[in-house]
């Protein structure tokens, strides 16, 4: 059980929760994730840690309400308990001075980008960050990312804020004009794929943080397997951070779609149930 200490709405459908989980906070490192479960009938949901504080024993998670489980999580309030909160899982990123690191965060992927930028900033790296969202209202944590970056670029797909377009166009510009030692990208699969395609000809090492479907998160089921450099890897124990130049992104995209029908069905049923509850209350 882990109590929710603070809840904040960052953007439409994007929520932040600060959770009292000292057993995770004391061990967490940048790049790791937690698995949580909300009800006895619930799924195990993997979420990358957005921030953690070993002193106060808190872990921050940020999630987008896209299906039944994340919507249900969004209905929990401050003071409520999360039934299971397991972690920290997965491997941490290597924390050392690489030189100039570009951190790219897309959409809700800005959240897991933050601890990586923060950890590498503390190691003395020069951090250039690029964060992007569909539109201005979907953008969050610009201030926090600015705190841990030497330079910050913001893009929106529709141009409602910052530069119009995608994070990749800013990245391309930087790669052409400056020496970059490492790129870290977290966001939609297609964004991470494009980032990796762009950095490859420049020979810049690129790390991506993958988000396949998982069950246990401890290497027991193999549901999260991905092909990296022609080899089968389990994201939960070998990752979630991998060399972007070696990841088979198309396979990952296909595997993320395995349960689309079921997810849709569960969501529709849940919404119908909620509506019925509302109606009976009136």
């Amino acid at each position, binding site marked *: 059980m882990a109590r929710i200490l603070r809840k904040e709405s960052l953007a439409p459908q994007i929520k932040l929760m600060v959770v009292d989980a000292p057993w995770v906070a004391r061990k967490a490192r940048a790049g790791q994730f937690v698995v949580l479960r909300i009800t006895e009938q619930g799924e195990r949901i993997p979420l990358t840690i957005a921030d953690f504080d070993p002193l106060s024993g808190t872990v921050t998670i940020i999630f987008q309400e896209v299906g039944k489980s994340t919507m249900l999580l969004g209905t929990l309030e401050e003071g409520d308990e999360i039934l299971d909160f397991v972690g920290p899982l997965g491997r941490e990123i290597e924390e050392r001075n690489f030189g100039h690191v570009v951190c790219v965060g897309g959409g809700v992927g800005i959240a897991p980008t933050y601890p990586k930028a923060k950890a590498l900033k503390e190691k003395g790296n020069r951090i250039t960050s690029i964060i992007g969202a569909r539109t201005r209202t979907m953008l969050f944590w610009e201030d926090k990312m600015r705190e841990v970056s030497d330079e910050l670029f913001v893009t929106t797909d529709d141009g409602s804020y910052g530069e119009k377009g995608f994070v990749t166009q800013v990245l391309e510009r930087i790669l052409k004009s400056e020496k970059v030692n490492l790129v870290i990208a977290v966001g939609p699969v297609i964004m991470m794929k494009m980032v990796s395609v762009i950095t490859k000809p420049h020979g810049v090492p690129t790390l991506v943080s993958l988000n396949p479907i998982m069950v246990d998160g*401890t290497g027991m089921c193999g549901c999260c397997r991905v092909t990296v450099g022609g080899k089968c890897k389990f994201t939960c124990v070998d990752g979630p951070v991998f060399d972007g130049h070696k990841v088979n992104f198309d396979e990952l995209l296909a595997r993320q779609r395995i349960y689309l029908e079921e997810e849709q069905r569960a969501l529709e049923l849940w919404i119908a149930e909620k509506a019925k509850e509302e109606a009976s209350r009136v």
Partner: protein
Amino acid sequence: MSNRFFGRPKMPQRPPEERIRDFYEVPLGLPEWAAVEEAKRCLQCKNPQCVKGCPVEIDIPGFVGLLAQGKFDAAIAKIKEKNSLPAICGRVCPQEDQCEVQCVLGKKGQPIAIGYLERFLADYERDRGIQPPPLPPSRNRKVAVIGSGPAGLTCAGDLAKMGYQVTIFEALHAPGGVLIYGIPEFRLPKSIVAQEVHYVQSLGVEIQVSRVIGKTYTLDDLRDAGYEAFFIGTGAGLPYFLDVPGENLNGIYSANEFLTRSNLMKAYLFPKFDTPIKIGQRVAVIGGGNVAMDSARTALRLGAEEVCLVYRRTKKEMPARVEEVERAEEEGVNCIILTNPVRFVGNDNGWVTGIECIQMELGEPDESGRRRPVPVPGSEFVIPIDTVVVAIGQGPNPLFLESVSGLALNRKGYIVADPETGATSLRGVFAGGDIVTGAATVISAMGAGKKAARAIERFLEAPDSFPQWR
């Protein structure tokens, strides 16, 4: 008092056409009269061979004799002197390879149905409410048990009975290990596992779920928290894959994933439970062990129209219990033997549509003593399917092992432990079950947990009796 009128009873079980529609238990258990009559067949040998076949050394003639006299409470108490989990063992132990194979009656006729009798007594006790035994005075020493499967539960239960303060750490959200995520409801109802876990808790054992040792806490953290001895029972939880092309296509599961979704996450009750499982019309399970049988029978119950088992040797070499193969076949599982997958075929959307296989023939015996399957050149063919479950075995999960330095592992990655005590290369650290032996049986894991509990007591009371750690 031997019974000369009845032979070994048949286990009553639900008819296949009824049972493949649900997940309820298949064997129904012996009625009281049949159990008593069967117990009367026991010769009460002076030098009982059956006990030698039992990894946890149950006094078999002792409990069978009490059962024959109708003293059910005394009989179950006799079992529980050695075995804290009789309802589980009575269901999933391979008695035909252990106690029953040793039974003198089996030499000329049918051995005593020891497993059925154990189950009868455990169920009898469960119906009446299980009473914890009186506990000895508490010894204020803390022991940590890592993993709540059969090895860990047994070790913890035995240590608690000696008066130690025991905490079990479990990575998943429910205790039981393979009993809860691996073995399906129709073979081992989860309410029974819960009850046996509850019994271990009633002995004073604390269980912390959702704590991954190696990640959440390290062994050193536990030492700092005052734990003086450790038992590692983390099992063989790493699924093996075939490592052939196309294995990451959608619709291909490891048996661990398939069974975990169904058993632990209750995907068979989707959408009442949130975890989904995808089942096609034609399902192929690859492998010939008990896990393969469990997967095939689960697939049928999830609504598959056809389920086939693809195995590279013949039925004779299948590692599964004969009883399990029979039940799977009764339910309509079709065994395709001497066949080995060479690659998976998929469609444009990334879903599996078939398995390309090659025919095998049996050659010379290999190191396991079974005849080695050899491919027949040019015999490739495709089995059209839409779901595959790969059940070719499991290995040691490295998650915990990687977090400890100085723990000796063997070539295959399992922990090196003294077979008599479970003592590892690290002082005060014991191990047992599948993490030492590789995937084996519930009862052998329990036997290892039992031996380790005894050794842990010896270590705590006389640490110098382990010269290797001096």
